[in-house]
């Protein structure tokens, strides 16, 4: 049923035309235009998927073309025209029917083998020297812990380039799904389960990701960012994250903000090392070093932060962060303090 030839040159040419043409079109969709694309692999894991997808697309396009051309040709050729002969009452043809049972079976075998190989390759044991990151899904933000480095952060995951990382994925409440398309497929965070995912990122850059499993009202706002950094940049980041939090002078605006934070309800939910131990919301020890806030939904700048602290529910529907009814002075002070936590 499929155009086949023993000449490897011909097959390669066919594959090139059939796969490369549409994929080139999609690959033309660069990360600049489509930052969350699953078709621009930037890790070993994502490449395994991409190779498999190429094979799938190859067969799918052949079958698609075959069926649609056959269908349209049949309709045009045998449409009722004046003088068309009375059809022969054919009831079937065993040889033909066996042929089109076996042909799909062969194609399926051809795709099942690489599929199973890819499954075992991507779900086996992670490389031993892989950097471990514990990922915890919360309604509606992601927490990232680096147990070997003693770092806890939120919404922004940093990994070194060309080094294996393994994620232990858990949830604090409902099911979420961890997904950075550029580095590979998604993996759910399921209560009472710890799932694993590992990859080695192969290019430096910043890539968006987001929760892929319906997890409640602000599911759409449960976003995150992946920073793939050079080894030295990553080490520098890790070193800065391990430092104790900035201690602003109590006479400055930031110092007043610290007082507001320490005396207010903030401490119930947020940790700032040495100051508070709340675990419901993100760890804020180095909040000022992050580029985004509120589950990577908004850029981390003074304006956004002020609006967020003043009325979180207006910026992110359903958020568990309380509207504390702060006055503008308190907001300004808190913003100054949070931004000082580099």
């Amino acid at each position, binding site marked *: 049923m499929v155009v086949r030839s023993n000449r490897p040159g011909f097959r390669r040419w066919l594959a090139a035309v059939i796969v490369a043409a549409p994929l080139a079109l999609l690959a033309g969709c660069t990360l600049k235009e489509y930052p969350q*694309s699953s078709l621009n692999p930037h890790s070993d894991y994502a490449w395994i998927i991409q190779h*498999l997808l190429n094979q799938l697309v190859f067969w799918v396009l052949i079958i698609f073309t075959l069926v649609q051309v056959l269908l349209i040709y049949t309709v045009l050729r045998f449409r009722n025209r004046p003088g068309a002969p009375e059809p022969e009452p054919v009831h079937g043809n065993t040889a033909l029917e066996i042929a089109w*049972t076996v042909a799909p079976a062969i194609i*399926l075998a051809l795709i099942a083998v690489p599929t199973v190989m890819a499954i075992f390759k991507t779900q086996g044991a992670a490389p031993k020297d892989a950097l471990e990151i514990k990922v915890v899904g919360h309604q509606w933000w992601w927490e990232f812990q680096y147990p070997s480095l003693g770092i806890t952060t939120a919404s922004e995951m940093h990994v070194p380039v060309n080094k294996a990382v393994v994620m232990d994925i858990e949830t604090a409440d409902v099911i979420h799904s961890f997904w950075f398309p550029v580095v590979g497929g998604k993996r759910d965070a399921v209560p009472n389960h710890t799932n694993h995912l590992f990859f080695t990122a192969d290019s430096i850059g910043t890539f968006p990701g987001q929760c892929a499993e319906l997890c409640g009202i602000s599911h759409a706002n449960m976003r995150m960012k992946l920073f793939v950094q050079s080894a030295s940049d990553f080490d520098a980041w890790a070193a800065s994250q391990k430092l104790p939090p900035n201690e602003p002078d109590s006479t400055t605006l930031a110092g007043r903000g610290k007082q507001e934070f320490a005396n207010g309800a903030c401490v119930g939910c947020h940790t700032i090392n040495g100051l508070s131990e709340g675990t419901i919301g993100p760890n804020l020890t180095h909040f000022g070093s992050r580029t985004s806030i509120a589950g990577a939904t908004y850029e981390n700048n003074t304006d956004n932060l002020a609006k967020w602290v003043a009325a979180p529910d207006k910026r992110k529907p359903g958020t568990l962060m309380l509207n504390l009814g702060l006055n503008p002075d308190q907001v300004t002070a808190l913003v100054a303090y949070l931004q000082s936590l580099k």
Partner: protein
Amino acid sequence: MATTVATAHAPAESQTGLWSWITTVDHKRIGAMYGTTAFIFFLIGGIEALLIRIQLMKPENTFIGPDVFNQLFTMHGTTMIFLAIMPLSASFFNFMIPLMIGARDVAFPRLNAFSYWVYLFGAIFLNLSFVLGGAPNTGWFGYSNLTSTQYAPGHGVDFWAIGLQILGVASLAAAFNFIVTIVNLRAPGMKMMRMPPFVWMTLVTSFLIIFAFPVITVALVFLLFDRFTGTNFFVPAAGADPLLWQHLFWLFGHPEVYILILPAMGIVSEVLPTFSRKPLFGYPVVVYSGIFIGFMGWGVWSHHMFSVGLGPLADSFFAITTMMIAIPTAVKIFNWIATMWGGRLELKTAMLFSLGFIALFTMGGLSGFMHASPPADLQQTDTYFVVAHIHYVLFGGAIMGIFSGLYYWFPKMTGRLLNEGLGKVHFWSTLIAMNLTFFPMHFVGLLGMPRRVYTYAPGMGFDTMNMMSTVGALLLALSVLVFVINFLASIRGGKVAGNDPWGGASLEWAIPSPPPAYNFASLPEVHSLDPLWHKESREAALASNQMRGPIHMPPNSHWPMFSAFGMTLMMSGMIFGWFVGIPGLLIMLFSIYSWAFEPCA
């Protein structure tokens, strides 16, 4: 309750008035009520889809908020599956099966009425949630533990769970009824392998229903216990594994997909031979493929769960079983094309929709093949790629098949033809709008847009394709409007059809359109698979229009409706309180008692 005795001079269809519809046990009237009700819910589900599309037409749109959005996509899915496609199929089962097998009615006419009324009341109950504190908002799949009282306070999830239980009763009763009808009431000489393919697919679908619905029933009972009595079937804090829900749900949910698509495949297998003037190519293989699809549908449920981390062995197993389903599906498609090969194709609207079914269902099948491969699926699952896939299967497949069946059997049902000109406008506008709506979703999904998000950021590259989908959805609404106009105009003013407007092969074309209440004046004898296409068997079939004595038809009864009403009331008491539930229970018990002792001659 007098027995209706029909004679050649006094046919029984002279009943009119609202009460005659409420008490009817005539499979044709019940079929018409199923069809009308389901089509209204198809329109409601469509409006929900339009609101979703308007919200998503541009990034950061504020047309509707996230809470309403989640309610809309939950109700869109639930409505289209349980309140539109399934009952539209049931409408064809009801109207056509007795006619196609040469029977006077279904095996249990009053149970048949009961199924319809339970469906109607269950559907109304489910939709009441919109005005009684908010519709369910956890998706049509209702993944635990998002459905727990902790994360879903309020009654939305209760309406959903109880509503599905009520609807399950309707589906189960109907499925048992059709199995018994098909097995026992076939005309003399109609062996199993002489049944029209649509009858076969109805039989397979009915078996799928009676095995699949108990599974979801158990899951929903667990959920309702959790929500109403504080048990911990799905409460992780008490050590529960929420994946239990996913296994139970998809063990039901995947056969459910075939419950939705097999009837449409049956319709296509009727329409193609008729308009090709050629018998179905490889009838036994088409039938066995349908059975094989139904059977294999039980071994693939975890392909909905590749991302939950079942381990490489389970993923490999379910990948291979899922791919195997592609084989009978491919066989069917090639057999359909071979049916047309060498034929004389009359491209009537019914035929066009069947051709559309083949073209679009193939695309849905191929995208399904793409996520049968777990590593690829891990990029595709929970994105718009899967939204594209299910709509090619359920709109391009099930709905196109249902429209094909409507154009094909409308003349039999009403005695009049649907307008062919408007029908062709309807077909081409549906085909174009459908592809405009759903084709871009493949790409927006692969480019990283998750499903079930009420908003997306600008600069992600999602804008243009979402706008295309929204424009397509609005066009799709217009194409449905064309059908509605055609339907309303043709039902009164359409061309008179006569017994057999298409030159069909099966028994329903031997009798008048619309058929008399008793269908066949005397039971036909069947000598072949295509009785009306063979000289002798055609005469035998047409002889069934000759009256050979009085006909006993079952009397009307209002107890099925009251039983259904009482049952719905009883179950809604879980939400509204004992003062609704207890009267409901009493009405139900009294009605069932009266039903059981009703003289039925």
